[in-house]
């Protein structure tokens, strides 16, 4: 049996290819939007995986360092390390800020600065894999940066008042917001996060000295002690915990919650916070875009197929007059719609694959999403062809005779 749709497409291939190209770019945008969402979820999981933690100990009644402000004393980790089932515990700080590259071509990079205890790989909070250089080994002024920052080994970067040398490069270490990470020693990070600038310190000291409750003539050393306490920064955002083999996370978390009065999250709970709470609004936003793009795609396919069909009304009337079955005519229109959708899908997939790496945030194009998109495109094309098929089936074969 001859394929009327195939012949029509071959006859007017330019029209179909260019229309498919336009549709394909739209489908490419749709695939990319889905990829942006997948990338956000993957970034969140990578953040948790790369932290090397199995438990997150945070300030009571907060959602932890990624979703809310949290501060716990920096000596709590010792108590946690002594609890049965804890293999290693380490302080960590997170602060998203502008990091300035110094020297020629100086530029600012938005990054999440992570304060970690200098140690080797496998230690909680340390980057898991290095592409070049080494891990943090000194207590101050060293940094390990994600390659997405654009920093190179040996470069100097400025964080608040201090300069750091980039000693290692890592990859796929990003915040839940997609900002690349810069790891620096914990003490420096605490200072960067909590320490005030010199002018503010001078003003605070003056205020403290003017406070009669803190500057009593009969209590020597009190003012110095108060000022000293104001100048120290004994807080971190969380304590990351690795468990000894064979221990259940919930069983280890329970005494920390009970005796240290802190909130503890397991990996599953933290993933729930990141995926279900932190990126939920973004996910809904993207879902709205996907729905709108799907509707626009359907409208475009419907309009194009309807217009193409109206342009063939006389031929359809002749086909019906000479005895062509309605289902043959419907199949022709349906095949053209599906053909247009397939051209669009192939163009869209290729376009999305090529432009995804150019996006500033990670775009993850999953095979499952591609298959789902193909099914959706075909379903949309079938639905979109209904209008044209109805118009074609309403054509009176008598129109071919005229009069």
């Amino acid at each position: 049996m001859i394929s009327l749709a195939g012949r029509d497409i071959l006859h007017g291939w330019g029209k179909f290819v260019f229309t498919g190209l336009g549709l394909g770019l739209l489908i490419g945008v749709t695939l990319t939007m889905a990829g942006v969402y997948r990338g956000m979820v993957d970034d969140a999981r990578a953040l948790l995986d790369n932290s090397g933690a199995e438990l997150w100990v945070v300030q009571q009644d907060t959602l932890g360092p990624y979703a809310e402000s949290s501060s716990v004393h920096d000596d709590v980790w010792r108590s946690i390390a002594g609890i049965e089932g804890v293999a290693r515990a380490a302080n960590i700080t997170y602060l998203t800020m502008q990091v300035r590259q110094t020297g020629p071509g100086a530029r600012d990079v938005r990054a999440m600065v992570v304060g970690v205890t200098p140690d080797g790989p496998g230690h909680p909070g340390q980057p898991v894999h290095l592409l070049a250089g080494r891990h943090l080994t000194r207590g101050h002024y060293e940094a390990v940066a994600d390659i997405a920052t654009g920093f190179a080994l040996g470069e100097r970067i400025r964080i608040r008042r201090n300069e750091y040398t980039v000693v290692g490069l890592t990859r796929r270490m990003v915040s839940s917001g997609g900002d690349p990470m810069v790891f620096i020693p914990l003490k420096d990070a605490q200072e960067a996060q909590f320490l005030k600038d010199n002018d503010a310190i001078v003003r605070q000291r003056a205020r403290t000295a003017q406070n009669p409750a803190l500057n009593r003539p009969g209590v020597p050393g009190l003012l110095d002690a108060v000022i000293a306490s104001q100048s120290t920064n004994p807080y971190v955002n969380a304590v990351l915990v690795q468990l000894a083999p064979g221990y259940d996370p919930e069983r280890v978390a329970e005494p920390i919650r009970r005796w240290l009065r802190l909130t503890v999250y397991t990996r599953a709970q933290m993933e729930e916070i990141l995926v279900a709470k932190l990126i939920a609004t973004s996910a809904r936003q993207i879902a709205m875009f996907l729905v709108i793009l799907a509707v626009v795609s359907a409208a475009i396919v419907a309009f194009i197929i309807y217009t193409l069909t109206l342009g063939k009304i006389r031929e359809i009337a002749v086909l019906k007059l000479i005895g062509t079955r309605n289902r043959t005519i419907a199949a022709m229109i349906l095949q053209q719609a599906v053909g247009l959708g397939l051209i669009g899908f192939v163009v869209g997939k290729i376009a999305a694959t090529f432009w995804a790496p150019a996006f500033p945030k990670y775009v993850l194009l999953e095979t499952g999403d591609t298959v789902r998109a193909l099914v959706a495109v075909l379903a949309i094309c079938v639905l979109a062809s209904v209008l044209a098929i109805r118009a074609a089936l309403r054509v009176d074969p008598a129109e071919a005779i005229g009069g």
Partner: protein
Amino acid sequence: MSGIRIEGLRKRYGSGDTAVDALKHVDMAVAPGEVVGLIGPSGSGKSTLLKCLGAVIEPSAGRMTLGGETIYDQGWKIRDLRALRRDRIGFVFQAPYLIPFLDVLDNVALLPMLAGRPNAEARRRALELLDALDVAHRARAMPSQLSGGEQQRVAIARALVSRPPVILADEPTAPLDSERALGVIRILNRMAREYATAIIVVTHDEKIIPTFRRIYHIRDGRTDEEAGEGRSIE
């Protein structure tokens, strides 16, 4: 006589006070191998008669016999009118209305293909007809690459490909000059004889009217038969 026979055919549009009798009483008989003219002024009912003969609209009363079989007698006697049109009635229009995205060969072979014949057989039969109509050399051309006369010959081949007992030609020479118009009539006469087909040509064309041996005049929904000049065009 086989061919086509029509007796007392009527067609009424609407009902009540607004009813219009487009055909009041039509009698026609065309034998196999015969070409007759059907002429009449605008609004006389030519197109309505053609649509009734083509099983596109249902008459209101009367009787129609095609190839010896009654297809209408106060109602359709054939269930599948689409198959009737496909297999037993050929159509030639004022404009050729070839399918623009099929080449000449497949335009002609389309009907037997749609009827379920193997593509090779359908194309072989189409090629024979194109050869008989002197357009076989354009078999792989697209319709837009043909002249008007060539397109009309291809349209005639398409009408003949199912070997129908009757062909309805609706002003087939209207867009053609005298020479080409007479050429088309010559072909229709030859094909009618060779394929034993009854051909009814609806026309206003003064150039070709003298070529018919028999002419049906349709006026006010009624037909009158008269002898034509039957001028030789061979």
